[in-house]
């Protein structure tokens, strides 16, 4: 039985209680199917891990044992942040702060029009179909809001190895807000952590969105994010991908209003046989839109790290600015780094430049450090930290930056824990 057949069968087994939206998502999946390797956007994804998933079912309820904070291994709350804790896709009221709960009370209201079935976002349909508690955060307050941290813990069990997040986030005109998303937990047995996030920034809204994927174990991460930016909206999106046995993140940001801007920074690190594959599509659809794309990828041992950035500038997006820098570092026999800095440009009034490099640690830099007395291992770790630091250093607050760095160091096993750029 193919993964799709299994998936649809399991969805059917959930019965009629799933509601119209989830059923429509499953129906869409049936008609478009799962991505295949010969699709250009999925060239580097580990689709075999998807094919081999034992089950797509999420837990029917959070296990009682797991409500204890120690079982959740929840990190300390980020200072100044209110927080919302989800375990296996369900909000944990007792661990969440009151402000956060007040924000997230609305049940998820789906906009089916956004489930563009044929797009590269279609794995988001899995999360839409299976997420038991879809969430909507509507941030309407005209004043700046307390920053919010989502702690998303995947515990799962062999019988229900999947957990899902289906989040719709709407930021009202002129509102500035900060959102942290931490994906934690993970199980030894193969499982799935699926997300679908739909962000809309109204005119002049600003969102600083920092995402840390630090799920451990044999989990497959399938992340899907769509964002739509109206005029003058600003979106800072930071993506730290160090988790999962295999991970694929697919983001699509539509700069729909004039002067909307995206600042995307991403880090992907892998060790062992890990696959870490990121895809970002940026659609410049209005005049004077800007996007900056910065990627740093590190493949240790036999890891595969890939980054595919597809930036398209429409004819009407005059005076768009695109700045792109993708860099990969390999350190291991059997490591692979794949980069695709794509530009599709349909207007002449554009400033676009990109650079992409792959390589190893620079021998001259290494020797310089050795000549100053550093151990070879420490020198390598320092240079790797400096390389990844270009993304890590922009993370705030400090507690989150530390957490991101520690998660990266834990994954790689050979990273300096200090911050050499400080």
């Amino acid at each position, binding site marked *: 039985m193919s993964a799709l057949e299994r998936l649809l069968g399991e969805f059917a087994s959930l019965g009629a209680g799933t509601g119209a939206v989830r059923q429509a998502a499953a129906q869409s999946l049936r008609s478009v199917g799962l991505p295949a390797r010969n699709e250009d956007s999925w060239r580097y994804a580990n689709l075999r891990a998807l094919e081999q998933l034992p089950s797509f079912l999420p837990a029917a309820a959070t296990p009682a044992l797991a409500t204890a904070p120690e079982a959740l291994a929840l990190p300390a709350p980020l200072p100044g942040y209110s927080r919302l804790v989800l375990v296996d896709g369900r909000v944990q009221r007792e661990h969440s702060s009151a402000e956060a709960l007040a924000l997230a009370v609305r049940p998820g209201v789906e906009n089916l029009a956004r489930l563009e079935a044929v797009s590269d976002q279609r794995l988001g349909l899995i999360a839409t179909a299976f997420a038991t508690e879809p969430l909507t955060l509507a941030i309407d307050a005209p004043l700046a809001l307390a920053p919010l941290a989502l702690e998303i813990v995947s515990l799962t069990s062999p019988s229900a190895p999947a957990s899902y997040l289906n989040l719709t986030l709407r930021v009202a005109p002129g509102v500035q807000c900060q959102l942290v998303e931490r994906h934690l937990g993970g199980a030894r047995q193969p499982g799935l952590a699926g997300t679908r996030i739909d962000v809309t920034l109204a005119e002049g809204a600003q969102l600083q969105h920092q995402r840390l994927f630090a799920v451990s174990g044999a989990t497959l991460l399938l992340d899907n994010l769509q964002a739509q930016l109206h005029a003058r909206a600003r979106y800072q999106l930071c993506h730290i991908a160090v988790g999962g046995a295999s991970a694929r993140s697919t983001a699509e940001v539509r700069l729909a209003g004039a002067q909307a801007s995206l600042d995307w920074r991403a880090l992907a690190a892998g060790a062992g046989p890990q696959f870490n594959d990121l895809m970002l599509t940026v659609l410049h659809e209005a005049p004077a839109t800007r996007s900056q794309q910065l990627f740093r990828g590190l493949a240790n041992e036999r890891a595969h790290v890939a980054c595919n950035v597809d930036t398209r500038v429409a004819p009407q997006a005059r005076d768009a600015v695109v700045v792109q820098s993708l860099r990969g570092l*390999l350190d291991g026999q059997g490591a692979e780094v794949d980069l695709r800095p794509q530009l599709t440009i349909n207007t002449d*009034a554009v400033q*676009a430049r990109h650079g*992409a490099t*792959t390589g190893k640690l620079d021998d001259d830099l290494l020797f310089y450090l050795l000549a100053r007395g550093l151990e070879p291992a420490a020198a390598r770790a320092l240079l790797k930290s400096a390389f990844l630091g270009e993304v890590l250093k922009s993370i705030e607050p400090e507690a989150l930056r530390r957490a991101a760095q520690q998660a990266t160091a834990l994954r790689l096993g050979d990273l300096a824990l200090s911050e050499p750029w400080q």
Partner: protein
Amino acid sequence: MSNANSELGALLARGYQHGFVTDIDSDTLPPGLDESVVRAISARKREPQFLLDWRLRAYRHWLTMREPRWARLRYEPIDYQGISYYSAPKPKGDAPKSLDEVDPKLLETYAKLGVPLHERARLAGVAVDAVFDSVSVATTFKERLAAAGVIFCPFSEAVQKHPELLEKYLGSVVPYTDNFYATLNCAVFTDGSFVYVPRGVRCPMELSTYFRINAAKTGQFERTLIIADAGSHVSYLEGCTAPMRDENQLHAAVVELVALEDAQIKYSTVQNWYPGDEQGRGGIYNFVTKRGECRGRNSRISWTQVETGSAITWKYPSCVLRGENSVGEFYSVATANNYQQADTGTKMIHIGANTRSTIVSKGISAGHGQNAYRGLVKIMPSAHGARNHTQCDSLLLGAHCGAHTYPYIESRNAGATVEHEASTSRISEDQLFYCQQRGLDTEDAVNMIVGGFCREVFKELPMEFAVEAQNLLAVTLEGAVG
């Protein structure tokens, strides 16, 4: 800017200068393709059995293939049964043995195209193997080449005289299963050029072929094979122009290069086939497979191309860098004006240790032209110390054109380095005004700026080609500034 725009719009309207038809009786197969056509072509060429068998394998494989759609190209489906797969000028009496015996009309055609064959050949020391449709009709300087031991002849002649070389090398770089168009070529190719440079020989002159497409509704399926034996050098020039036609014409050539140890091959192309009119009607569909293999240590293959013509260009001259320390280079200028579409680039496959590759791609888009660079740099696990540098620049002339960059960088060796840089720019009003203030008219200013943009590539071309390329570019882009 609007003043400049209208002024230049008028200049753009200048028609294609190389459009006319030579009236010669052709020996042409009726349109359509099946096994009997493949057999008929092979029979007319008096080919040995192995070649017929190979063609038939290719044909049968082709039947299982689908036309690729991944390139960023839009065009009406091609009716492969509506094409005639063989067209040869009828010999008047015996085949010509020298230029004097060549049909004067044909020579006149070349003269109109700015290729005064014997003149230029003698003056520039170039041996020309001119292809008129599918059959070679004139070959010069054979004796001088023969003295050096270089074989340079029409492909069909090589079939008769050097079958052992063909059997060894044909399809060894581009296998008959490679891709839809290449496989079709394997089945139905009619002629082309064959070059063999023996061990240690530096080819005494630039080798050159001017291809022409002539007869209506004739697909053109050239096949070129160049073998540089150990320690040898050869520089090969390919230039193309075509008469004006309303129907789209398919062109699916295959070029294979083999460089053995310490050998060097330089392959230069200026392609100026009919691009279609300003509304995008007509023009050549150019689906070409070009690939070279650096088979031996320290070998080098260099592709230089200036692509100004064709309605559609689908072309990725590539290098398989198998030998240790081998070097692959790709220098390209591609323009797309009016409704032209170009999807071109290269593949550099690094297999051997310390292999190096350089890619310099300059794309110029004007009018409604769509120009895409598509390139793969692949570092295999065995390619320790491999290096690539890619520079990929786009120049946009006008608000309705497109410039696209689709690189694939795949590195599987931690000791290799790949660098890719790209930029997109347009000619700024400031640049134009500056030039105008210094007394240049807009057209000269654009030519100067475009020339500067392409200089890195032009300097790789043999001298007389560089001049031709610069002129072609000027004609192609006349007034294309918005």
